[in-house]
């Protein structure tokens, strides 16, 4: 092989790998990305049932109901709307009524959400950032000092 051919081989292989990687990334960007929505966003943006989303907001006081075999339902609300969440599993340590959480799962109908994971904050004086931003936007932010670690 001449020098030129060798160089072309290298460039060709590199180009192929990069093209494949780019294709994968672009495809995955369409398919695997999950949008964050507050309960109000679901109505405002018209999120279709069956869509996978992250839902963030405050757990409504008095809405947590525990059924058999760790079947749990609660409502997640923001200043304008509320969504009922069904979840089977153990809730995170810092899950409390009246506090911020983020749940990931499928929106089953405009007011009902089936979560497969629930994230709460990771220490006592923290609100998930997305939830804090939503509340700020809606003008209901009461300020929490010392935001620190999250979730899971």
């Amino acid at each position: 092989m001449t020098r030129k051919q060798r160089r072309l081989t290298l460039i060709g292989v590199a180009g192929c790998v990069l093209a494949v990687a780019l294709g994968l990334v672009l495809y995955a960007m369409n398919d695997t990305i999950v949008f964050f929505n507050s309960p109000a966003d679901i109505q405002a943006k018209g999120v279709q049932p069956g869509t996978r989303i992250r839902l963030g907001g405050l757990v409504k006081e008095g809405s947590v109901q525990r059924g058999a075999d760790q079947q749990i339902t609660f409502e997640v609300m923001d200043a304008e709307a509320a969504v009922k969440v069904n979840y089977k599993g153990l809730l995170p340590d810092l899950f409390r009524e009246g506090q911020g959480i983020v749940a990931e799962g499928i929106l089953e109908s405009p007011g009902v959400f089936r979560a497969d994971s629930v994230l709460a904050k990771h220490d006592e004086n923290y609100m998930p950032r997305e939830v804090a931003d939503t509340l700020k936007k809606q003008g209901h932010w009461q300020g929490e000092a010392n935001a620190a670690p999250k979730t899971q």
Partner: protein
Amino acid sequence: MLVEAGHFALALALGLSLIQFLVPLWGARANDPVLMAVAPTSALAVFACIAFSFLALTFAYLNSDFSVLNVVQNSHSAKPLIYKISGVWGNHEGSMLLWVLILALFGAVVAVSRNSIPMRLQANTLGVQAAVTIAFLLFILTTSNPFTRVVPAALEGQDLNPLLQDPGLAIHPPLLYIGYVGFSISFAFACAALIDGRIDAVWARIVRPWTLGAWAFLTLGIAMGSYWAYYELGWGGWWFWDPVENASLMPWLAGTALVHSTVVMEKRDALKVWTILLAILTFSLSLLGTFLVRSGVLTSVHSFAVDPERGTFILGILILFVGGSLALFAWRAPMLKQGGLFAPVSREGALVVNNLFLATACATVFIGTLYPLALEVLTAEKISVGAPFFNFTFLPLIVPLLLLLPLGQTLAWKRGNFLGTAQRLYAVFGISLLATVVMFAFTYGGPVLAPLGIGLGLYLVLGSLNEIVTRAWSKGTPLAAAWRKARGLPRSAWGTAIAHAGVGLTVIGIAATAWGIEAIGSLKVGERLKGGDYEVRLERVIPRVEANYREEAAVLTVFGSGRELGTIETMKRLYVTRGMPTTEAGILTIGLGQVYASIGDAQPDGSIGVRLYHKPLVLLIWIGSLVMAIGGGISLTDRRLRIGAPVPAKAIPPHAVPAE
């Protein structure tokens, strides 16, 4: 008093770093050996000052000196001794201090290995390294001073975040930082080569042990962090594609590529410019990780208290060093003498393919980690890029690399023969394929990816074994002679084979997670929960009170196919000072697999929620990483690295000191 002395020592270290930065670089430019000789001396002095400062802070923690703000915020007099020590770096300020301590330690080690590094290169390297030290010392002194006093002194501390009260904290951050910061040395060597405008195989031989050492520590640090998250967070995952985990994975991928490209440079005097660029990028990704974790742009288990001023400062450091080094690269790299090209089918060609795949995989992780941040800034739309994205992009790039790995390892330097190489691997390939088919038949109807992944892992392990065997033994050789020959192989050959076998073990462990079983239920005392072949019975719930927490411990008996295997305890703790609850998982190790249980809240009817997992072969994930790091360590003891680079005869002292 000691606290003030520690603070002063830190300021002194800043002054000395300025000397370490300016004088040697000037000396190298003016070709003045006296000025260049300042480099090692000042590097040792900087290390001494920072070490003193670190000890002063540790002393304040040990004495529970609650007149120091940092101690008040992160310690408690009732905290066990080990967490008083590890708590020093369990917070933002203290961990930054550990960061610069390790940075200075590396500088000091470069300083004492003066006999193996040419003087000019050493002076330039230590000068560049001092620039990094200066930036981070300024950062600590102006925005994150761990020595700030509070008046009046507090009576009691606020305790350490309970999640960090674990032996993991004593091990994970130091290992990780040695890895991250170790790449600063490769970076400094790269910049030194650019400043000098000269780079050759000697440079590669000097840099390689540093890169390899940093890589091995980073591997251990990441694996330790993964195991810690697995048992501490109580939900059984070992990797979450969390942005902060990605922040450590990116330098690891780039560092892995760098470890391989320096081999090519050392053996064949090629890939010079690329290696320099890779060294710069690896450390830039380490800095990016520091920025992501400490600036508050991400929310994660790892984020520290957010302060916009700190984020801006670190962003400044990041831009300065990434931008500065890339500008230097753009300016000087064209002057470096290019090495020769080489045949595509050869060991060096295979290593180029390795670099190509690793760099591309690293780029997909980079995009997945930073895209949500960019999108939020540009459109205010919040998205999450999680496991599905990375499984879809990262895995298709890594799997072909792993398939090619045994081939590349077997190819000869310069001019390889693809068919001949493939022939040497027929048996390995056949056995792995057979094992895959057998596993598939036995688990028919189960997940398809598990047997395929385990087959791939087996192929890697056997391929590495095959490499050693075929180099030492051929038909007709007596076993004793083959064993002698195998022992006589270079340590780097053993290191390579062991590290690659470690990759195979990790792959097997990861693939086997597809066979894992999860069960959730509410149990009263005496009731059972079944998950696959395993079953647990809730025996009793014991309340306990310890020095700094209260807990409810659930005692579970584990049964496997009807036999009693042992008991495990899983706890729900409440750390009193912070009012923060945590869950401690109960784990029973059976062979290489684990039965893992954690409890949730008590129900109104008196039962408690229990989550049960069976994770077959899960320990292989971390054992494999450990084996990889051991392989790196064995390569480090290779004779050609141990004796260091060739130096002019007159420079050899009567007792040659080893490089390490």
